[in-house]
């Protein structure tokens, strides 16, 4: 048996330490304009690094084909986002395409 309390306490401390470290030290340094400019890249690159494997990596590795409903849904979402700039529409239509394509694949196979 593992000492559950110890493990969870340790995990909580480790996680909070990382989450708080930068905020906690915030009065000891200021970001130069150059750094602030560099940091503008963080949101898009991080979100991309999360989404791309999520969409392209299937159970059996890389799956770039029309059999991958996530890929089809993601392409639809990119097109909708680029043309409408409407987040809610991107989410709902992207999900609809994904579920619809899944249904079609189910009928076909």
């Amino acid at each position, binding site marked *: *048996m*593992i*000492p*559950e309390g*110890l*493990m*969870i306490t*340790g*995990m*909580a*401390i*480790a*996680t*909070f*330490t*990382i*989450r*708080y470290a*930068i*905020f*906690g030290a*915030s*009065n000891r340094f200021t*970001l130069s304009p150059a750094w*602030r400019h*560099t*940091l503008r*890249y*963080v*949101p*898009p*690159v*991080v*979100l*991309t*690094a*999360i*989404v*791309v*494997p*999520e*969409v392209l*990596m299937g159970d059996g590795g*890389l799956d770039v084909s029309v059999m991958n409903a*996530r890929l089809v*849904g*993601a392409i639809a*979402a*990119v097109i*909708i*986002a*680029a043309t409408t*700039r*409407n*987040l809610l529409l*991107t*989410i709902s239509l*992207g*999900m609809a395409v*994904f579920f619809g394509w899944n249904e079609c694949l189910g009928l076909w196979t």
Partner: protein
Amino acid sequence: MIQLQDYSHSRGQFRSPQAEFWAGARDILPLIIGAIPFGIIFGTLATSNGLSIGGALAMSAFVFAGSSQFIAVGLVAAGTGWWLIVLTTFIVNLRHLLYAVSLLPYVQSLPRRWQTVLAFFLTDESFAVAIRRYEQADGAPMKHWHHLGASVTMYGSWLLSTLLGITIGQTLPNAANWGLDFAMSVTFIGMIVPYVKTQPMAIATLISGSVALLAYPLPHKLGLIVAAIAGIAAGVLSERTLTHPR
């Protein structure tokens, strides 16, 4: 009158703390829909792999970090020592440093207790929603309430879905097959696309996505950090090359 003076430069975009809070709660809903299956799966797996019910709930309540919770359950089932699980948690959560430094310009002037609370609730999802609100150029002064609203809502739903998994998880059809997790992908896509207006930004995301695929086999979500840093470097370098051509 003093208040009017204070917000005069914000082009009338002042929103009350409550309004910001509920807007944050609303804005994170699609990401919550995407995370619910994982909360349910976590609750189900945790209790069937050696954690007590209290332990599973406590992990969601005090650690509140989905990926590391899943990895911890796997390690518990494999009989790994607790200190190694803690160390692994530390590594898996390193990516939060990137989120925190990116949020820093917006939380730097907040009181310490605000920073503490917002840090505890920091997740992939709350980061994505909060940074989007902070970056809107409306000059509204209460955006940290939006951040808090998104964070607290995410937290509540994570606890609830963990509880669902613990209690009725075994009777539900496999939540991994619902397809709801795709909500996170489309939401993030809708957030990424508006950024890609310049060539360096396009290069940065292209490199980040490619490196994320190549580095996918790396353990402990390290691929994400490698990809992000590669993307940032590519963006900054291409900016220099494009603006100072030889």
